[in-house]
C-alpha cells in the first residue's frame, strides 16, 4: 500500500477534475458518488499505509517520483514523505474529510452549486494531502497555497451575498500576509541549507548551535505563516468571518484540517524550533494570549457558528502553546481530538441550522433536544469532550498541555487554566441556549423543524464515538494508562534531543483532574441556572436582568457575588476585547496599512499627468540621478 501513496492526493484531484468539468452536466447523485468515493478510496489506501507502517516499526519512507525543479545547484524533487506524523495527519484529513463529505450530501442537497461544491471540496482534499505528504518545504508551500485558495473559494461559495465575498477576501488577504512570512522563511532556508528537503534540512541543522540567529529568523518567518493559516493574534479575525461559508466547509477547513496546517508545519520543523528557544517562547506566548482572548470573545457571541469559530481559535492557541513548550506530540494529540469534537460540533450546529431553515442566532433557538434527539446526544458528547470532562477525548489532550505548561511556566499555566474555565462557560452557554429552555423562534420554524436525514446523522454518530473514545490513545501514566500516541510519535520526535521533559508529579495530575472535574460540574450547574429558563423572545439586556433578579431572589448572596466578580467582568472584558481590540486595533491596523498604500497610490497617480514635457523632464532627472549616483558609488567603491 505504501507504494500507492501517490494515489492518495491524486484520487481527490481526479474527483475535482471530473466534478469541475462536468459541473452542471452530471447529476447530483453522480457528483456525490465521485466526491465521496474518491476520498473514500484515499482513506482505504491511507489505512493500508498505516497498517504497513505499524508492521515496519515506524521508519520514515521517502518516495521520490521525479526531479521537479532544477535551477542551478538547487533541485527540488517531487517526493512524498511517509512517516508517522504525515500518516496521522492523512488519517485525520481523509477520515474526518470523508465523514464531512458524506454529511455534505445531505446538507447541500438543495443547493444549485452542488457539483461545484464537491469539486472545490475535492480540490481542498488534494491540496491538504499534498501539504501533509510533501517531503520538502516547497511542496508544503504549494499545498499551503492550495488550501488557502480553496478556503477562499468555499467561503465565498454563496457569492451572491456581498458580505460573504468580503469575508472571503479578508480571509485571503490575511492568509497572504502570513504567506509572505512563509515565503521569506522558505527563501532563507534555501539560502542557508541549499535545499528544502525536510530530511536534509533537519540533518544539516544539527550543526547549528542553539539560539542561532539564522535559525531564529527562519522559524520566526515560518511562524508568521502559521499565524495567518492557523488564525493566531494578530491575524485571527478572518476565521470568525470565514463562517460565511457552508457549514461543512467550516467543519472541514476552518476547524478540523486547514487551520491545523500551521501546527503541522511547526511540528514538522520541530528540530529547527527546538534550536530556537526564543521563537518557541514567542510561539507559546502568542498561543496563550490568543487562547485567552478568543475564549473571552466567545462568551458573548450569539451566532452559533461564531461561538464555535472563536472556540476554534482558542483551541488552536492551546496547540501553539504546546508547540512552544516543545510538547510536540501533545500538540498533535490535541490536533487529533480537536478534529473529532470540533468537526462534530460544527456538523451538529449545521444540523441545527438545517433544521431551523437557516437560523443561526442562538437566542432564537432553545428546547431543541426534543426535536433533534440525535443531534442533541451527539452535541452533548462533543460539548463534554471539548470542556475536558473525563473520559472524553478533550480531557486527555488538554490535560497533557496543561501539565506541560505547568512544568514550564506558571504564567502560561494560569492563562491556560483560565481559558479552560472560559471554554467550559461558553460551551455550556452554547449548549443550553440551543437545546434547553423553550423554543424562541418563529411559528414557521417550529412547524418545519425536523431531524436531519441519515446522511447527516451518520457522520455525527461516528464522530461522536471518536470524540468519546479518541482520548484513549493518550491516557496519562498517572491513571495507569499507556500513552500510545506519544510512543507512536517517538519515531518522529524522538530524534530531537532538545525536547524538554514535562514530567510532573502524579499528585499534581490527580489534583488537576479533580479540580477540573469539580469546576466543570459547578459551571454546569451555574450555566444551567442561567440559561435553562423558559424565557421567551426577550432582548439580551432584559434576559440578563431578569436572570439577575431571579438569581438574587432564589439563591444566596454567593451566587450574586460570583456573578458580579466573574461573569460581569468577563462579559465586560469580552465585550472590550471584541469591540475595542478586535474591531479597532486589529482591524484598524489592517485597514490602516491598506489606506496608506492607497494614499501613496493616489500620490503616484497624480505624477502621471499626461504632459509629455513633464515626462521627459522626469527622465532627464532620472538620468542625472543615475549618473550622479554611479559617480558617488565608484568613488566610494
Amino acid at each position, binding site marked *: 500500500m505504501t507504494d500507492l501513496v501517490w494515489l492518495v492526493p491524486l484520487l481527490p484531484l481526479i474527483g475535482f477534475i471530473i466534478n469541475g468539468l462536468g459541473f452542471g452536466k452530471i447529476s447530483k447523485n453522480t457528483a456525490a458518488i465521485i466526491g465521496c468515493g474518491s476520498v473514500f478510496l484515499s482513506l482505504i489506501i491511507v489505512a493500508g499505509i498505516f497498517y504497513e507502517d505499524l508492521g515496519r516499526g515506524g521508519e520514515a519512507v521517502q518516495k521520490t517520483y521525479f526531479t521537479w525543479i532544477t535551477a542551478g545547484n538547487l533541485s527540488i524533487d517531487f517526493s512524498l514523505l511517509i512517516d508517522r506524523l504525515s500518516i496521522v495527519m492523512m488519517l485525520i484529513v481523509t477520515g474526518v474529510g470523508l465523514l464531512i463529505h458524506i454529511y455534505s450530501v445531505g446538507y447541500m442537497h438543495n443547493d444549485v452549486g452542488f457539483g461545484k461544491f464537491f469539486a472545490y471540496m475535492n480540490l481542498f482534499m488534494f491540496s491538504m494531502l499534498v501539504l501533509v505528504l510533501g517531503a520538502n518545504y516547497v511542496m508544503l508551500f504549494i499545498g499551503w497555497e492550495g488550501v488557502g485558495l480553496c478556503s477562499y473559494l468555499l467561503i465565498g461559495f454563496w457569492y451572491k451575498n456581498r458580505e460573504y465575498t468580503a469575508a472571503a477576501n479578508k480571509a485571503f488577504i490575511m492568509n*497572504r500576509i502570513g504567506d509572505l512570512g512563509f515565503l521569506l522563511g522558505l527563501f532563507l532556508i*534555501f539560502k542557508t541549507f541549499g535545499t528544502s528537503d525536510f530530511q536534509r534540512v533537519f540533518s544539516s541543522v544539527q550543526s547549528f548551535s542553539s539560539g542561532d540567529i539564522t535559525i531564529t529568523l527562519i522559524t520566526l518567518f515560518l511562524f508568521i505563516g502559521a499565524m495567518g493559516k492557523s488564525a493566531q493574534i494578530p491575524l485571527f479575525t478572518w476565521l470568525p468571518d470565514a463562517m460565511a461559508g457552508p457549514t461543512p466547509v467550516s467543519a472541514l477547513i476552518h476547524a478540523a484540517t486547514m487551520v491545523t496546517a500551521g501546527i503541522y508545519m511547526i511540528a514538522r520543523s520541530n528540530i529547527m524550533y527546538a534550536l530556537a528557544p526564543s521563537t518557541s517562547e514567542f510561539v507559546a506566548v502568542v498561543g496563550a494570549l490568543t487562547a485567552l482572548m478568543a475564549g473571552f470573545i466567545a462568551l458573548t457571541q450569539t451566532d452559533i457558528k461564531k461561538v464555535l469559530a472563536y472556540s476554534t481559535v482558542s483551541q488552536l492557541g492551546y496547540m501553539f502553546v504546546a508547540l512552544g513548550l516543545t510538547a510536540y506530540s501533545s500538540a498533535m494529540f490535541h490536533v487529533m481530538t480537536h478534529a473529532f469534537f470540533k468537526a462534530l460540533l460544527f456538523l451538529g450546529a449545521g444540523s441545527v441550522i438545517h433544521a431551523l431553515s437557516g437560523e443561526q442566532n442562538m437566542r432564537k433557538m432553545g428546547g431543541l433536544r426534543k426535536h433533534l434527539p440525535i443531534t442533541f446526544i451527539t452535541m452533548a458528547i462533543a460539548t463534554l469532550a471539548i470542556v475536558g470532562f473525563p473520559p472524553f477525548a478533550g480531557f486527555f489532550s488538554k490535560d497533557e498541555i496543561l501539565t506541560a505548561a505547568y512544568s514550564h511556566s506558571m504564567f502560561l499555566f494560569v492563562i491556560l487554566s483560565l481559558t479552560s474555565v472560559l471554554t467550559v462557560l461558553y460551551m455550556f452557554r452554547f449548549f443550553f441556549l440551543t437545546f434547553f429552555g423553550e423554543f424562541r423562534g418563529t411559528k414557521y420554524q417550529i412547524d418545519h423543524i425536523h431531524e436531519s436525514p441519515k446522511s447527516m446523522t451518520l457522520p455525527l454518530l461516528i464522530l461522536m464515538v471518536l470524540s468519546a473514545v479518541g482520548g484513549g490513545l493518550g491516557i496519562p501514566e498517572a491513571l495507569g494508562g499507556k500513552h500510545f500516541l506519544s510512543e507512536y510519535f517517538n519515531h518522529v520526535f524522538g530524534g530531537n534531543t532538545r525536547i524538554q521533559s514535562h514530567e510532573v508529579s502524579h499528585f499534581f495530575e490527580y489534583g488537576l483532574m479533580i479540580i477540573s472535574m469539580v469546576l466543570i460540574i459547578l459551571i454546569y450547574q451555574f450555566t444551567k441556572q442561567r440559561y435553562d429558563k423558559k424565557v421567551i423572545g426577550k432582548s439580551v439586556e432584559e434576559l440578563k436582568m431578569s436572570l439577575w433578579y431571579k438569581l438574587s431572589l432564589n439563591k444566596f448572596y454567593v451566587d450574586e457575588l460570583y456573578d458580579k466578580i466573574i461573569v460581569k467582568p468577563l462579559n465586560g472584558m469580552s465585550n472590550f476585547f471584541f469591540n475595542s481590540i478586535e474591531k479597532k486595533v486589529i482591524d484598524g491596523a489592517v485597514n490602516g496599512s491598506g489606506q496608506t498604500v492607497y494614499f501613496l497610490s493616489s500620490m503616484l497617480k497624480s505624477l502621471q499627468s499626461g504632459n509629455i514635457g513633464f515626462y521627459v523632464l522626469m527622465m532627464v532627472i532620472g538620468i542625472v540621478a543615475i549618473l550622479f549616483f554611479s559617480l558617488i558609488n565608484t568613488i566610494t567603491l
Partner: protein
Amino acid sequence: MNVVIALTITGILNLFGSIFSYRKITPLLSIIGLTTAIVFNSMYWNTNQSFFNHMMVVDNYAVAFGTVCMVLAACLIIFYNRFMGDNDHHLPEVLSVIVLSVDGAIVMVSYTNLLMLFLGVEILSISFYILAGLKKKDLGSNEAAIKYFLMGAFSTGFLLLGITLIYGATASFDLSVISEYVKLNSTSTNYLLLSGVLLILVGLLFKVAAAPFHFWTPDVYQGAPTIITAFFATVGKIASFGAFYRLFQMCFSPIVNEWSGVIMVVAIITMFIGNITALQQKNLKRMFAYSSIAHAGYMLLALLSHDYLGGNAILFYSIAYGISSMSAFIIIHIIQTQTGTDEAMGFAGLVHKNKTLAMITAISMLSLSGIPLTAGFFGKFYLFSSAIESGYVLLVCLAVINSFIGIYYYFKPVIESYFKDSITDDVIKLKSVETILLIFLSIATILLGIFPGLVPAI
C-alpha cells in the same frame, strides 16, 4: 540566417497583399511564415552558429527567446483578424509591420555587435510607433503614437550615445572584444566606459519601461488598440529584456559592482511604482500597464545574478509572463468589444456569459500574481532565488512584499467575473480556434506551474 530571411520575406509578401489583392490570405500567410521561422529557429538549438561576419550568433539563449517572441506574435495574429474590424482595409500592412517587428526582436536577442543591437531596437521601436497609432480616427491612439515616438526617439539618443562612448573606450562594437576589454580593465573605474554603460542602461531601461523611464507606458498602453498593447507588453518587453540581459551578462558582468547599485534602486522604485499605482486604476489596460512596469521591476533582479541562473530565470519568467498577459489582454479586448468598457466592471458576471473565458481569466490572473501551481509562481521563484543566490536578500524581501500587493489588483477582474452580476445577459461567443488557443495558453500556464522543468535550461 534563415529565421530573419523567412520573416523578412513574409513581411514583404504581406505588404503586397492589398496591391495584388490577396489580402484575405495574409493572416494565413503570416502564420505560415512565422511557423516556418519557428521551425528554422528550433533547428539552431545547440548549434551555436555565428552569422553575418559575426554580427549575430544563434546560441540557445537566442533560440529560446526568439521562439517565445514568435509564438506570442503568432497567437496575436490569430486574434488580430477578429478584433480590428474597422481597420480591416489595412490588414496586410499591419500584419507586415507586426512580422517585421518580430524580425527586430530576433535581432535584439541574438546580436553580438552593438550596431545590431541598435538596429534591432530601432526595427522593433519604429514598428511599435506605427502600431500604436493604428486607429487613425481615435484621438487616444494618435496620442499614444506621438508620445511613444517622441519619448522613444529621446531615449534612443541615449542608447546611441552610450554605444558611441563604449566604442570610444574599447575601439570596438563587437561584444567579445568589449567583454575582453572590460575583463582586462575591471580593476579600476574607467569613466568613459562606465558612462557608456550607464547611458545604454538608460536606453534599455526605457525600452523595458522601468521607473523613472516608465511614464510613456500607461498612456501608450491605454491609447493603443488593446491587441497591439498585448503585443507591446509581451513581445516588446521580452525582446528588450533579452537584449538587456545578453549585453550586461556577456560584457559588463566584470564591473557589476559599478552598475548593480543603479539596477537595484531602479528595480525597487519600479516595483513599488508599478504595483502601488496599479491599485487605484479603474481602467484595466492602464492597470495592466502598471502591472507590466512592476513585472519589469521583478525581471531586473535577474540582471544582478552573476551566473547562468539569471538567464534561465529571466527566460522562464518571460514565458510565464508572456503567456499570461497575452491571454489577459486578449480577454480584455473580447470584453471591451462586447461591453464597450475597458474597466474592471466590464468583467462583471463573466462566468454567466462564458464559463471558459472566466476560468481563463482566473488562471491568467493567478499566474500573474504568482500563486503556486501556475507558471507565474515558478517565474518569480526562479527570479527571486537567483537574486538570493547572489546575495540580494533585502531586495528579494521587497520584491516578495510587492508581489503580495499585486495580488490585490489582479483579483479585481476575477472577483468581478465570479462574484458579481452581469449588466447584460448576452452570451459571449468565440470562434472555436480562438477558444482552443486561449485554452492552450491556460493549459501551458498550469503545466509550467506543475512541471517547470519543461522549459529547457539554456
